[in-house]
């Protein structure tokens, strides 16, 4: 193709967030056993019940097998070769942002997430997580005035222990799956959100996860509880430096929505994906699940997955409360040698529950992109409905797209609809746009944006623009 040189130029464009922050860190030694877990728990001054939770999870994990049903090709992970706790060295107790190491503030500045009072984003409260610990959470006072709790999960363990004890592991049990069990044993930090009864959270809440060390895993844990008639929109972003080794990221996210509550959870995942030869990159094995516990409650997942060497994640909804609603909107883009196996599970238990799934997979280069989803209608889910739409777009002739929809129904009075399509960006479509003066790269990005529009419409506004840009950047040079 004529644009070959251009293509080469942009492929070599470096990952924008690939820098490493040179900071002194406190790391425990590599390896995992019960002592490691006791050490982590001790460092975090945790209560006994939490240590028990961790130890139980660890014992279960030891008896479990790493899953291979997703047929992802990767070198076996040596779990003894990972550091399970890594934190930038700071003063013991930090009472204000002024005491945070300027290097850390600078890092988040560089990532476009300024934390200081003068520069912080005006409409979003941010919890910034660096390796194993939360660095800072903005707007805490303002949120507290509304009774909203937004802090790191470590702080929540200390300050809101009753909530943690009640809800932690209530959506994703510690033995749910291999990676969730691992996370339950060694999780270090993450965000905690509590929206009290009747409160509409006055601003979007956001967590930004940054992996900095090359040899430590990140195991964050997020818990969001929305009480009756409350609502919240939560955003999550992730980046990591470029290392030629693979870093393990195994997170667990649990959402709980009570009567008439609604939680919207949006992710833009841009972990380092490895280079063109598939060297390096994050292994992203994540368990995200929401429980619509209350009547008429609603949980909506939207995700834009562009990074990671391997993505394995299925943000799901358990629709317990009658007339509760689950949604999943996803764009997954893979390029070069990336592999993504992502989708959702919609478990309809309560009557008249509804779920919508819209998944857009884009595969370029030599990548593999699979949608894997389960829709289950339980025996009491009468009058429940699901609509699923799974579209794949192929760019080039070396990429692969798969769709694995699993459907189980034990309730004759329920409806499940599934639509799927696959398309390819054709040379003639590109030529048409080019012949009107539109640059090759922009032509590709226009077509991809068009393909993803249904999902982008679901993202919070600032996020949608970012996602659009991110996709364009990721795709540069992918059509040859």
């Amino acid at each position, binding site marked *: 193709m*004529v*644009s070959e040189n251009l293509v080469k130029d942009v492929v070599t464009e470096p990952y924008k967030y690939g820098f490493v922050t040179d900071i002194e860190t406190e790391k425990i030694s590599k390896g995992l056993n019960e002592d490691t877990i006791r050490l982590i728990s001790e460092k975090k001054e945790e209560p006994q019940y939490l240590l028990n939770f961790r130890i139980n999870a660890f014992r279960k994990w030891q008896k479990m097998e790493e899953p291979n049903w997703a047929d992802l090709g990767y070198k076996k992970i040596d779990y003894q070769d990972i550091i399970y706790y890594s934190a930038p060295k700071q003063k013991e107790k930090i009472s204000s942002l002024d005491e945070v190491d300027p290097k850390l503030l600078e890092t988040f500045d560089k990532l476009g997430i300024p934390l200081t009072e003068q520069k912080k984003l005006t409409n979003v409260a941010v919890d910034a997580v660096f390796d194993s610990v939360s660095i800072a959470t903005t707007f805490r006072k303002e949120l507290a005035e509304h009774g909203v709790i937004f802090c790191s999960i470590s702080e929540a363990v200390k300050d809101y222990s009753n909530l943690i004890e009640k809800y932690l592991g209530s959506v994703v049990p510690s033995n749910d799956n291999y990676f969730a069990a691992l996370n339950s044993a060694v999780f270090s930090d993450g965000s905690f959100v509590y929206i009290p009864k009747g409160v509409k959270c006055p601003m979007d809440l956001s967590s930004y996860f940054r992996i900095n060390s090359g040899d430590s895993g990140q195991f964050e844990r997020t818990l969001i509880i929305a009480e009756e008639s409350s609502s919240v929109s939560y955003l999550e972003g992730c980046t990591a430096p470029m290392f030629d080794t693979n870093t393990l990221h195994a997170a667990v996210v649990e959402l709980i929505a009570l009567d008439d509550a609604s939680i919207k959870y949006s992710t833009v995942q841009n972990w380092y994906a490895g280079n063109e030869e598939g060297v390096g990159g994050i292994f992203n094995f994540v368990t995200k699940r929401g429980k619509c516990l209350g009547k008429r409650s609603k949980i909506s997942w939207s995700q834009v997955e562009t990074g990671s060497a391997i993505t394995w994640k299925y943000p799901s909804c358990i629709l317990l409360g009658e007339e509760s609603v689950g949604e999943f909107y996803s764009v997954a883009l893979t390029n070069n040698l990336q592999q993504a196996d992502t989708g959702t599970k919609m478990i309809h238990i309560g009557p008249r529950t509804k779920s919508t799934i819209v998944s857009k997979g884009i595969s370029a280069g030599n990548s593999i992109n699979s949608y894997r989803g389960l829709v289950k209608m339980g025996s009491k889910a009468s009058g429940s409905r699901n609509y699923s739409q799974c579209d794949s777009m192929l760019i080039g002739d070396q990429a692969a797209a798969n769709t694995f929809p699993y459907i189980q129904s034990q309730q004759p009075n329920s409806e499940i609809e599934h639509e799927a399509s696959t398309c390819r960006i054709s040379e003639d*479509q590109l030529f048409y*746009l*080019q*012949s*009107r*003066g539109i*640059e090759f790269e922009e032509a590709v990005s226009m077509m991809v*944006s068009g393909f993803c529009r249904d999902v982008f419409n679901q993202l919070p506004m600032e996020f949608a623009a970012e996602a659009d840009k991110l996709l364009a950047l990721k795709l540069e040079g992918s059509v040859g």
Partner: protein
Amino acid sequence: MQSKTKELDPILEVNNLFASIENLPILKGVTISVNPGEIHAIMGRNGCGKSTLSKIIAGHPSYKITKGEIKFTGNDIQSLEPEERAQSGIFLGFQYPIEIPGVSNLEFLRVATNARRKFLNKEELDTFDFEDLVKEKLDLVKMDSAFLSRSINQGFSGGEKKRNEILQMALLEPKIAILDETDSGLDIDALRVVASGIKKISNEQTGIILITHYQRLLDEIQPDYVHVMADGQIIKTGESDLALELEKNGYEWTDNFIKEQ
């Protein structure tokens, strides 16, 4: 070839052009020169190389030029990308405009118009100014503004697609427009609308190449020159009466001409 305006340099010169697709030769020595203000018609049987010629001028990547040259305003354009050719003022009206789902027609027209404006050192238009401009141009082709909010050519009838092509031409104000069977699939009313649109857009500065099978478009737009193409070559050039002759006698003689060669 004779020129009405000898003092002007040609906009487009195709010299002894040979081209092939997947090693199959399609063009076998085409020469044509278009001066500002001229309208040329290229006629010939299906498969004679008319569409290939137009796509090669626009820079379609599937074709390989094996010999000869294409000059646009005096410069060889072979090394230019299709978008660079378009920005500098070459327009191809497609015989079969392709559908592009998900991409809004309005957005597409705006990005394309601004790419051309940028090249001309004109200010790029924001959404509001562009809407004013596009509404004015819609009248030229009697299109409804509802077309703008749809995806590019998606679900358009044959006639609507062709009008959309002319709308693009009106917005891009090209130096040379090559219109590949713009008349095919149009009823007589739509043909008149499209023809009058083309006439309004063109002026003494622009050149037009009409690729067509039929006299009826040429009744609406009088060509200065008519070229007959067969087997990848222009085998005869005349004035507008040549088209009438073809209408009467058909293309059979062109086959004999090639055989004799």
